[in-house]
């Protein structure tokens, strides 16, 4: 998607001087996607992540080339289902909060990382 970026406000009534100031276009792809071949756009189902500003129907920009960091949001393979989760870090280990308490994320277990969420795209006008 490309949107022209205009540097001056346009006043009505006379030929727009702004046309001379069209500098470039805003390129949301390059802004939101840092590593294209590793980035996927994924839609959210359900409202369980509302506390973390993620709602049903939102689009997530997910980068598989990134590593987990403190307080990040990630797509987790949770017992063979892909879910979106908030990640907590304690003593060099990463965990997810679950009803049964916190669960360790481990590459070699059934709870591992699929990708790291870098942006949430939420529509405010429908």
């Amino acid at each position, binding site marked *: *998607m490309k949107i022209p970026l205009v540097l001056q406000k346009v006043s009505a009534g006379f030929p727009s001087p702004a046309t001379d100031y069209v500098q470039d276009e805003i390129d949301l792809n390059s802004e939101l996607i840092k590593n294209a*071949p*590793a980035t996927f756009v994924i*839609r*959210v*189902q359900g409202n369980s*992540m509302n506390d973390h500003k993620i709602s049903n129907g939102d689009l997530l920009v997910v980068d*598989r080339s990134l590593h987990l960091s403190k307080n990040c949001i990630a797509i987790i393979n949770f017992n063979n289902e892909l*879910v*979106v989760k908030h990640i907590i870090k304690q003593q060099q280990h990463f965990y997810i909060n679950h009803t049964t308490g916190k669960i360790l994320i481990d590459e070699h277990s059934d709870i591992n990382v699929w990708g790291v969420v870098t942006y949430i795209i939420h529509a405010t006008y429908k």
Partner: protein
Amino acid sequence: MQPTNNIIALVDCNSFYVSCERLFRPDLKRKPVVVLSNNDGCIISRSNEAKQIGIKMGEPLFKAKPLIDKYKVSVFSSNYELYGDLSRRVMKILQQFASNIEFYSIDEAFLDLSNMNMSSVHEYIAHIRKIILQWTGIPVSIGAATTKTLAKVANHIAKKNNIGVEEFISKDQEYIDQALQTFPVEEVWGIGRQLSKFFRNGNIMNAYQLKHVDNYWIRKNRTVMVAKTVHELNGISCFPLNVIPTLRKNCCVSRSFGKTITNLPDLMEAVVNHCITAAERIRSEGLIAKSLYVFIKTSRFKSNYISRVQQVDLPIATNNTMELVHAASRALESIYVAGYNYSKAGILLSNLKPKDEYADNLFSHIRKPLDTVMNVMDEANNRFGKGAITLAAARGKHHYRIRRGHSSRIDTSYIAMAPTVRAF
């Protein structure tokens, strides 16, 4: 001829279509999975688990049905939007690791690594493998050697060992020869079924024996291509990387119908849609067509088999959808015979040439606006999805649509078809 110092790596995606379907379905890991051809006809991709229970490559679905039911095999219709996007991602990553690449097929590429230090090849290809797996989720096997044919052998070994890579670069000749001895002659690149029969009759059973066949004798009895294959097994490169894709001469779009079609309007809708797809394809490659063929046929397996084809030579070579559709419609009308159950229709654009090869002519001023319309159409369809703008003749009841009963319906290049995850 001296052995060359080339380093060629073959990157091959493992059970590619199955791996694509597994990307958003972790539950399918270590389970038997198959992907079907267009119209859900035959099995064209199998997971290792599906291979192990005895499902054969190319087998019709109905034949594999007992095994599929018994072992609860997951079955998918082919989803080329998804596979195409993941293939593009893999190829894009490869471009970061080598500047000379031959994109050999949707799931294979040859890399030129000739400038590398021989001792670091193993580490390098292992790193490429790791990055592709992490970034795209697609497992690949990589084999490196001094020729394409040997790289293919190394790749076969990489597929079976547990690290996914193999190289014949830092290894001595004895090691390579041992690998060739266990490599059946019919698996050698370029040796098909007929040739392997010929060699097996001559007691040449493996790649090592083939490597030592007298080259003069081969040339006398077989083709130069086979002689080149033998050279390549000896480490003498005869098949260089095709870095520049060769411009194609033809573009064919044809499909079998989900169910048979008898009337002309439904047939027309199918031909028009195929024509639009073909025109889009040659435009994206900067080509124009001088002639086209339209063909329709009934099932070969039923009585009353007919197959009809009409060629049209276009007055001026073009890639304009409207002009091509017009010509294709007239061609279809001329070959259509009522009273048959047609099972397949298609279009072939041929005598393709790069667009700028044709100089302006008397009608150029009429064509310019038509080309502008095409640009707008392509732009809009890119932005809003395939078929956003099309011709009225292409909009119908879609009786011709192919069967895709088991599609995952995910397209990672199109937001409306984005994969989903559960908030949890």
